[in-house]
């Protein structure tokens, strides 16, 4: 019965999309309204029947997700057993001084020798990571695979929940007659949204960047898991857990601090608290969240202090992230810039580059205050482009969100160019590295040029998605087929 209903519903939807919409352009207001209301009916029916039964939905989607997890774990397990694992774990694109597994092992070895791991400049992980691997160092591979699976499942559930809300909001907007009539094309159908959570999980688990990062046992995978859990708890509306995971992510690598803005916006939106500086409820909520965040941060920091009995880790972890003393090449912008910097400008540019990462939070939050999840995506992308020691694992995290914005594809301007550049750069990284370091036939400029291009491509990708998102929002409020005053077809420009 269910299946027949679903088929019926799909048929109806298809008629709306394929047969009726083209006719919409012709005049006839009454007919338009009829079609409109029938579409509305379908939507209502869909939300009632299909999207409210969360459990049923989970059961239905569990099978492909399990298959996906099994497949990705198999790939990783095979790679761990192959000789490639060692090669990958040395790649500068995959591991940074902050996340390299070799350095974790070194830290544990130093502890065994009775030397504080932070007395040298090799180990830069947080004390909790040492504590974790003190117990599971023999099961490191399983830990990293588990972290990837946790990230994927958390993103999957988060996106599923988010999609439900998007759908609900869209329904209310339709009911309130807020969309212009010719925007029906832009309205998202449940069919195309149905597979998005699975695609997100797939984008994360099967992304070569994630696989490389996991095989290299980069602790970036663990940070990603923490951030994914933060996103999940935020989207589920659990304020306390969201604050705890955010403080954990901040503790691991400072930069996720900027994610507090989208989290606050989202949670307030969920609890119907208006973002208004003059309202007490707004400030009260912020105070609550800040208290939870700072409280858990305090507990974590205190715990790390008691684990090793010293504050040595603060300069060794956070000082290292902020002052960038290690200029080992990576895919980011910092290493060559600060290797070639004039000594008396170093501090100035260091401040500029670090502020740059945090700077976008405020304007982006103002612009995207209605869309906190897109804001999370933007923040993750900005962090992974401009952070001091980026690796491909960071890129994998924000790339997992790309399927969520698949409805923006019609507005993307240079996605083809950008994906070509990203692919070409990914292939050229090892080639130019080999030419510079091993063959000696190239110099550092070659590798540097590729990192520049890679970052430009990432910037274009992110700004393109941002553009498309803003443009869709514009169309949703002003109509899709805009006309000039004289009636001819208009083109939209940014002014």
């Amino acid at each position, binding site marked *: 019965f269910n299946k027949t209903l679903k088929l019926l519903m799909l048929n109806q939807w298809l008629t709306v999309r394929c047969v009726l919409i083209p006719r919409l352009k012709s005049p006839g207001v009454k007919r338009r309204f009829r079609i409109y209301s029938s579409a509305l009916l379908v939507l209502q029916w869909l939300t009632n029947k299909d999207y409210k039964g969360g459990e049923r939905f989970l059961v239905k989607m569990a099978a492909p997700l399990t298959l996906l997890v099994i497949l990705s774990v198999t790939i990783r397990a095979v790679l761990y057993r192959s000789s490639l694992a060692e090669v990958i774990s*040395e790649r*500068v694109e995959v591991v940074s001084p902050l996340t390299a597994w070799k350095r974790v*092992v*070194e830290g544990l*070895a*130093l502890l065994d*020798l009775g*030397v504080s791991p932070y*007395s*040298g*400049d*090799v180990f830069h992980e947080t004390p909790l990571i040492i504590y974790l691997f003190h117990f599971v160092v023999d099961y490191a591979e399983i830990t990293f695979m588990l972290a990837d699976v946790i990230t994927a499942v958390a993103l999957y559930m988060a996106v599923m929940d988010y999609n439900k809300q998007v759908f609900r909001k869209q329904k209310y907007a339709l009911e309130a007659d807020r969309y212009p009539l010719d925007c029906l094309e832009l309205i998202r159908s449940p069919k195309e949204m149905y597979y998005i959570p699975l695609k997100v999980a797939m984008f994360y688990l099967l992304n070569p960047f994630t696989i490389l990062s996991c095989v290299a046992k980069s602790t970036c995978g663990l940070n990603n898991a923490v951030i994914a859990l933060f996103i999940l708890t935020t989207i589920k509306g659990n304020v306390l857990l969201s604050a705890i995971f955010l403080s954990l992510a901040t503790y691991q690598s400072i930069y996720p601090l900027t994610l507090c803005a989208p989290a606050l916006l989202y949670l307030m939106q969920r609890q119907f608290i208006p973002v208004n500086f003059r309202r007490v409820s707004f400030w009260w909520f912020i105070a609550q969240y800040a208290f939870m965040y700072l409280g858990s941060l305090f507990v974590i920091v205190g715990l790390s202090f008691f684990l090793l009995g010293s504050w040595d880790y603060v300069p060794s972890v956070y000082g290292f992230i902020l002052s960038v*003393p*290690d*200029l*080992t*090449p990576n895919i980011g*912008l910092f290493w*060559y*810039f600060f*290797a*070639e*910097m*004039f*000594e008396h400008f170093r501090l100035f*540019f260091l401040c500029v*580059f670090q502020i*740059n990462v945090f700077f*976008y939070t405020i*304007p*982006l939050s103002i*612009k995207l205050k209605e869309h906190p999840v897109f804001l999370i995506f933007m923040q993750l992308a*900005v962090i992974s*482009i*401009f952070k001091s020691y980026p690796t491909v694992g960071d890129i994998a995290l924000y790339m997992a969100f790309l399927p969520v914005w698949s409805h923006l594809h019609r507005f993307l301007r240079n996605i083809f160019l950008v994906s070509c550049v990203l692919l070409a750069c990914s292939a050229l990284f090892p080639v130019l590295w080999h030419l*510079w*370091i*091993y063959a000696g036939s190239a*110099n*550092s*400029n070659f590798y*540097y040029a590729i990192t*520049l291009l890679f*970052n*430009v491509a990432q*910037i*274009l990708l992110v*700004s393109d998605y941002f*553009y498309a998102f*803003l*443009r869709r929002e*514009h169309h949703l409020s002003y109509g899709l087929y*805009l006309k*000039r005053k004289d009636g001819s077809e*208009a*083109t*939209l*420009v*940014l*002014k």
Partner: protein
Amino acid sequence: MAEQKFSLSVCVCVCVCVCVCMCVCVWAVRAMMCGCGRDDFQEELVIRPLHSGDIYASFQFRTVWETDFMRGNKVSHYRLFPKSLGQVISKFSVRELHISFTQGYWRTMQWGQPFQPSPPGAELWVWFQDSVTDVDGTWKELTNVLSGIFCASLNFIDSTNTVQPSASFKPLGIGNETDHRFLRYATLPREIVCTENLTPWKKLLPCGSKAGLAVLLKSEKLFHSSFHSQAVHIRPVCQDWQCKTTSWELRQTLNVVFDLHNSAQGKREWSLFKMFSRTLTEACPLASSSKIYIDITDNPQGEQFEVSPATPLLSQAVVLGDRRTFSVYDLTQQITFGTVRSLNLLIRWKSSDMLRPLLHAERYVAGYGLQTGEIHTLMYNNHPYRSFPVLLLDSVPWYLRLYIHTLTVTSKGKDNKPSYIHYQPSKDRLRPHLLEMLVQLPPNSVTEVTVQFERALLKWTEYTPDPNHGFYVGSSVISSLVPSIVAMDTNSTRERPLFSSFFPCKEESSYFVRVYTEPLLVNLPTPDFSMPYNVICLTCTVVAVGYGSLYNLLTRSFQIEEPSPGLAKRIANIIRKMRGVPPL
């Protein structure tokens, strides 16, 4: 007449009195000013024909002074002891100072053990008195002063190449203070030793290079050799057997190995004149002893080489665990110089074979590319049935990031776990790695120590002017008590040849040996030094692209593009605006 006589006798009396007074005064003043008694100077040259066919000449000049630099009143009267070093000792409260400058690498496998080991480049290690509060500050000042005294680049010693070994460098003089907080050790493997270092070194000698053995030290010959090492060692020693009072000992040593095949055009013949372009005519007049020893242990019947002029004096000494026989030439005896009043020793070879030292070591870097690498240290124990422990000290600069978890020690294919490891990780731009460990070397074996490292990319200003030449890593130091074949002499105050009395000997059954490995030359990845401006511009451009595109989207809004009016219309509108008429 009587009056005259009287006045004369008064005169004489006065004169005698004045003379006596003056003498007493001078004696008293001298005793007061130097606050000490005797000083003594000895010089010695040991010549050892090596089995490889090379010749090893080792000069030792020893000044012993019964004084105390550490007492409150300043020592201001110097006789034999160089004033510049005396002032250094009292100003910086130095307890022991060892400095060496070496050009070339001592090939233990071919040449056996040297009398005084030293690593290539410059090495400095100092024990400070425990009254010193700011050891690092004093060390910094001291290196700068020594840099001036020896015309060397010792001022490049800073925290990045200084370590405090916990076990390898014990004081060689008396004193039981072994708190390694007062010890500083540094090497400059890149230091190039030349004439400018030799000249100030020679000036410290009481006779300079005017007389005695020092006349042989001509730089044009000394530096045309396979190995050249000059050193200064200052330490407190016992005055007598009871060791109630201490005196200060200054040893200046100079070791040189001449390559016979190079300098003698293949003829296996050697003489003082050929090597040093000088002959000896006299001993240093200030020296209490001045001797030349020639090692003839391997040549008892004169079947390998012959020495002329022959000498009837023979001496036996236990050195480096072996009893050696030497021909002795005493330069204080006029007869040594013969009728020509000049001594030109001559050695002619007949045949040769190789020797095997009990302990030697070598080191190299394995791996390829500029990303990672592995340091291999090989330690050979050639003793047929005895195993003995060695202390290995490695001081690696911070830009080679050592991974201590990759440390492996293997002997005879089996894992050989060190019984003691002292590891101090490096701090970027502040201090080097220090690795010290105690390893037991099984008999007749090779022990291999490997550790992996990662090469850092430095700031462009941190590279040397010739960055692609590579960076030097100082020698590993291997210190050991090697089992001796003959009983060693543990009495440190007995009169012995200088070359056999440098390292104090505590046990009869073993002797102390220090072996230095080769320094390493390691390449680091380099940035392009010619384009800091370009890099700054390009990176800033990329950041600006990111900032600009986001700024663009954040501040602007979407609007419908209206076609811009034609040029004529625009001009017309401007005119109409000026006229105050509404535009077209």
